[in-house]
């Protein structure tokens, strides 16, 4: 994008697209705005981008049509050992003694590391990684760390 617009030039599409999204810094934004005021080609291109955005946002919204949350809650209640749960009595209190003790031993193994280290990061994070270890490669969420806001990662 030039400050002196020529009648036929290729618009800086990433620049216009980011301008539309409000993702340019103040200096870049001003530069694009000044250019747009004098360039019908880029103004037309921006109008197309804006129209596409408006249209996509106006598409009919699908919904599940049922309460998945209720289904998930039932599934979790049926398979409680997967959670690192402080409130474990919720699920094993009512069990026959033999089953209950076997289950609590097994659960203790799972929960031990998390309880020993309290709220420290190491154990739960390892538990989370184990979850993904059991999945096929396509499911690997190796980048979960990148979900963290920059600067907050230790």
């Amino acid at each position, binding site marked *: 994008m030039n400050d002196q617009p020529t009648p036929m030039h290729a618009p800086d599409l*990433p620049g216009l697209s980011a301008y539309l999204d409000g993702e340019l810094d103040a200096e870049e934004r001003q530069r694009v705005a000044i250019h747009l005021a004098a360039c019908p080609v880029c103004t037309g291109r921006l109008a197309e981008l804006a129209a596409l955005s408006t249209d996509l946002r106006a598409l*009919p919204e699908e919904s*599940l049509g049922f309460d998945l949350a209720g289904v998930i809650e039932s599934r979790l209640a049926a398979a409680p050992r997967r959670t690192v749960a402080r409130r474990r009595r919720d699920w094993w209190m009512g069990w026959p003694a033999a089953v209950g003790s076997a289950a609590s031993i097994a659960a203790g193994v799972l929960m031990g590391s998390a309880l020993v280290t309290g709220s420290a990061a190491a154990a739960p994070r390892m538990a989370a990684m184990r979850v993904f270890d059991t999945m096929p490669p396509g*499911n690997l969420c190796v980048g979960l760390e990148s*979900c*963290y806001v920059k600067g907050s990662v230790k």
Partner: protein
Amino acid sequence: MADDAESELIARAQEGDHRAFAALVRRYQDRVFRFILRLIGARDEAMDLTQETFMKAHQALPGWRPEAQFRTWLFRIAHNAALDVLRRRERIEFVSFADLPAGEEDHALPDPARQPDQRLADRQSIELLERTLQELPAEHREILLLRELEDMSYTEIAATLGIAEGTVKSRLARARSAAIAGYQRHSGDNRHE
């Protein structure tokens, strides 16, 4: 989005409170479903995958940290699950600019006869846009969905997809260009029919 009520629900869910986790699911179930459905196309499969996404999120929840935005974290899990399905279908195609007629992306101009608020007034326009979206390479479709339907910032999209913000900027521009070209191609087809 990351309000106090949500933080409270996450904290309780991390402690094993299933009802709190269910409340989180209820907040996001339709949006995650919508994202997956538009990404993979098939409704039944999208329902299963939405459920799978939340089950995976529940399993991974102990590893979630308050520094992470819950929504991008959740959508990243959905993204991985959907990508896996697409790979299995061998439907992943990467950037398809070579398929576009030369120059089409640069000289197409908006139709001045159509006002923005009327653009999708008719069923035909909606169908054309839906078809255009489905024909885009998955990575283009996905980034458009995150930006336009989820209204994510570039930082949030980068975190969701695990790519640099600079890549978000360039990929989004390519995706938009391809969508506009595809839509105009379909509109042209219809006029000539």
